[in-house]
């Protein structure tokens, strides 16, 4: 690392201090915190025992959906720029028998844990995002131990594309059907059930499943194209 010139160091430090000064506003909070109301009412209103899931899939659903959109666009970007590149030469990491066996053994349990986190995200920590990335870690283990082509064999790219279309249809269904009944898009019209029941929360479980699948497919795309290309940095 070459010595940064003084002309760069001083503005950098000033910029850092300036940005940090903005956070001094934290010590002068205004208004009333929402958390007591959430703690009291959220479980009953949303039907989810995991209050965080209740918040991001019910009260702030639109935020979550747009963030899923950002994720999808980023994955599109990765695929678009890497799809035309030539393939890499040698396998990235040497495959010893231990790693290969471990990858074979652990792949299915990791997928199962991912599915569990997605399905029970409204009752215990987890949710769509966490479950999707844990499933992605299973793919990662496969790609490291057995090579990138294995994850392409187990999850065909065309099948994943069709799954993405289904997920999109699912989202549109959940968003537009309530409008037909005169409610705001995406509101929960299914029965809530009792809090703590695996079947509760109404559409929260369905959203979790859709988000988990989408994150899983996105992670597959990133891992597959990175393994195939194996950049030159």
């Amino acid at each position, binding site marked *: *690392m070459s010595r940064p010139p003084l002309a760069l160091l001083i503005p950098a430090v000033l910029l850092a201090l300036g940005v940090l000064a903005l956070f001094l506003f934290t010590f002068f909070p205004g208004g009333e915190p929402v958390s007591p109301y959430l703690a009291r009412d959220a479980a009953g209103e949303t039907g989810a025992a995991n209050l965080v899931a209740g918040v991001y899939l019910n009260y702030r659903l639109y935020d979550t959906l747009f963030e899923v959109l950002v994720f999808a666009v980023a994955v599109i970007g990765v695929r678009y720029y890497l799809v035309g590149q030539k393939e890499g030469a040698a396998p990235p990491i040497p495959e010893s028998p231990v790693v290969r066996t471990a990858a074979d053994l652990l792949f299915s349990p990791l997928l199962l844990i991912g599915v569990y986190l997605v399905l029970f995200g409204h009752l215990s920590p987890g949710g769509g995002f966490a479950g999707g990335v844990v499933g992605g*870690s299973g793919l990662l283990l496969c790609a490291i131990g057995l090579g990138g082509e294995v994850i392409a064999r187990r999850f065909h790219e065309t099948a994943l594309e069709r799954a993405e279309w289904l997920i999109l249809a699912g989202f549109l269904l959940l968003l537009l059907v309530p409008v037909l009944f005169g409610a705001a898009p995406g509101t929960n019209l299914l029965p809530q059930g009792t809090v703590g029941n695996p079947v509760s929360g109404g559409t929260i479980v369905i959203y979790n499943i859709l988000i988990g699948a989408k994150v899983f497919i996105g*992670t597959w795309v*990133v891992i597959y194209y*990175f393994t195939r290309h*194996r950049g*030159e*940095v």
Partner: protein
Amino acid sequence: MTVRTVLLLALPVIAVFALTRARRLTAVIAMGLFSFVIAAVYLLFHAPDVGLTEAAIGAGLVTFIYILSIRKTGRLVILADEAPGLLSRENEGITGLEWEILSGFARELGLDPVVRFLPRPEIGHALRRGEGDIGAGGILAGEETPGLVATPGYLPTALFRISPAGGAGRIRHGFEYFGELADAVRRKAPLAATVDLARFMGLARGDLTGYTVAREEGEHAYAFLVPADQPELHSRLCDYLNRLQESGKLDELVRRYLE
């Protein structure tokens, strides 16, 4: 002192450690450790969803895609500064005498040759840190430092000293990349530099009025640098260069590129 406070205090330390490393691989692994620690911190802040997601993403996927992009296996990494005729860029590719020599060598080893351009003074440091396999770009035999070994010179050369005629006020001495030197000469900026034959020929294609040029005494030759901990690479490279000289291919390449 709760566990949480201890871990929180460790975070800036790990972050500073990661961002001040010289080797990219060390920094990436340190960031993996950072992710783990901050996932534990999220758990201790009673945010289990956040901690779970951060652990799965930060320690696994992020480290993985970094390592996939900065891998070095299967390549022969050449660190160099540009030297016209020896190793320089042309449109999208690389050309030059040294490039021909080193590509043939890499093909013989079964590796892909890859060039990284670095400032001349940093090539030695980078080689010692393990960031590259061979140092090239008009390096003179005798420029060895501890930790590096040079091949015997494969091509004799000469040194030239360029200084402003009539002595101007502020003279600029150091240049990181050869391209900067070439630009400065084009702009007729006052500078003083010592360049080898290939770079001098590259500068002489332009206009050198306004500078005095003096040839320095002494015998010099071009060579390649290899880190000292790779003796087999060094011996194979010397062997390859000998074979090039004996078969006359070296003279043919010199004729093609330096005349």
